[in-house]
């Protein structure tokens, strides 16, 4: 529960509101995590927020977070400069079940900043590409300016990962796909073996709801669809109850769940 001190070593601006911070533990201890887990980041005098880890699991000498500047604390995190320190608790929670996907086809569906918590999964795939079947990444963003990790996406394509990108709003000079990310499900599911595919979905709540519905409509069962749920994580160890969702504590039991686990509670409007 006590934050460890980390120092920012690199800060990159991904888009006008989103920054990726690379940090190292001040005591030099390695940082191990599983894709989909999150940390609690503490900026002195500002507060603490949960942020998913967006770096490569095998790079234990560093920890990477991609943060959108939307509130007081996230703004303070985004403002951290190389050399500055912050507190970190973690990693917490249950991540993506990457082991279950070895030998099978994998569909990663991301909306907006939801690509960040899925990026460690891509790194795992890239580390041992031959262990996985067809891997397809579907990525929807608001507009071209908001696209994350564009240079990396080109590298993923070169490494035999199919990446389909779509924008909700496109300028005339954009020659890629336009439309919501759910519109990619039909062509994407033609590229995988539906009987052997597992899908990981991450993004805004509405995006995940409609994406899951679209995947189910096209034949993917709920127990092979995983989503990353997030709500008001505070203590991150299942004690405070802020993130309780039905009988689940999202911080401890999640944030990643199979859709079949969460479905009964997602359908209760009052929750």
């Amino acid at each position, binding site marked *: 529960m006590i934050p460890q001190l980390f120092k920012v070593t690199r800060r990159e601006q991904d888009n006008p*509101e989103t920054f990726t911070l690379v940090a190292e533990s001040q005591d030099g201890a390695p940082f191990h995590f599983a894709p989909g887990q999150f940390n609690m980041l503490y900026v002195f005098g500002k507060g603490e927020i949960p942020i*998913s880890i967006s770096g490569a699991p095998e790079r234990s000498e560093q920890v990477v977070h991609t*943060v*959108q*500047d*939307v*509130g007081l604390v*996230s703004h303070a995190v985004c403002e951290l400069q190389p050399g500055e320190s912050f507190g970190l608790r973690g990693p917490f929670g249950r991540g993506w079940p990457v082991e279950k996907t070895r030998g099978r086809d994998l569909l990663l569906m991301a*909306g*907006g*900043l*939801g690509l*960040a*918590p899925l990026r460690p999964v891509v790194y795992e795939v890239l580390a041992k590409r031959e262990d996985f079947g067809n891997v397809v990444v579907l990525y*929807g*963003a*608001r507009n071209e300016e*908001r696209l994350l990790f564009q240079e990396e996406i080109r590298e993923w394509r070169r490494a035999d990962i199919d990446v389909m990108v*779509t924008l*909700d*709003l*496109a300028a*005339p000079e*954009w*020659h*890629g*796909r*336009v*439309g*919501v990310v*759910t*519109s990619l499900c*039909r*062509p994407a599911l*033609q590229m995988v073996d539906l009987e052997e595919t597992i899908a990981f979905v*991450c*993004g*805004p*709540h*509405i*995006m995940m709801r*409609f994406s899951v519905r679209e995947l189910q409509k096209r034949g993917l069962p709920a127990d092979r669809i995983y989503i990353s749920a*997030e709500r008001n994580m505070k203590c991150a160890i299942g004690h405070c109850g802020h993130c309780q969702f039905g009988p689940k504590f999202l911080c401890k039991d999640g944030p990643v769940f199979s859709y079949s686990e969460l479905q009964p509670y997602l359908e209760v409007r009052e929750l």
Partner: protein
Amino acid sequence: MSDLLDVLKRHPFTNQYSGEEVKELSQVCSSVPFEAGEYLLKENEVCDRFYLLTTGLVSIELRMQGGEMLRLQTECAGATVGWSWLFPPYRCQFDVRALESSKTIAVDAPEMRRLMAQDPLFAYRTTFEVLQTVVERLSQSRLQLLDIYSTTESRS
């Protein structure tokens, strides 16, 4: 013709059709390729055909005042483009333009309406397929309007 029939059988538009109905449909179809930049349909022109996309990428667009173009959606292989052929006044609502080299099956709309008038079951299945496309696009357009990736998005 047999190549065309094979392609038609594999296209999702014919999922509801019987083998005989696909053959009937093939009588009013032709293969039409488009190069990037070519128009499949133009706004307000008589919609005397619609297209089943088999490869490539096309864009549904709206020309704004001053000539600026607004790209609304794109469609790829497996999609059906154009539904204004089914409803009076049979005029295209939007431009459709190829963004990359694309292969299509063009369906002759007046001939299709004639076949539908002769065979209510064929007409029902065709209307069902067209409505599926309409419902899908309407649902996607509503989501687009929500601006779900605005700065209130959850993961930050």
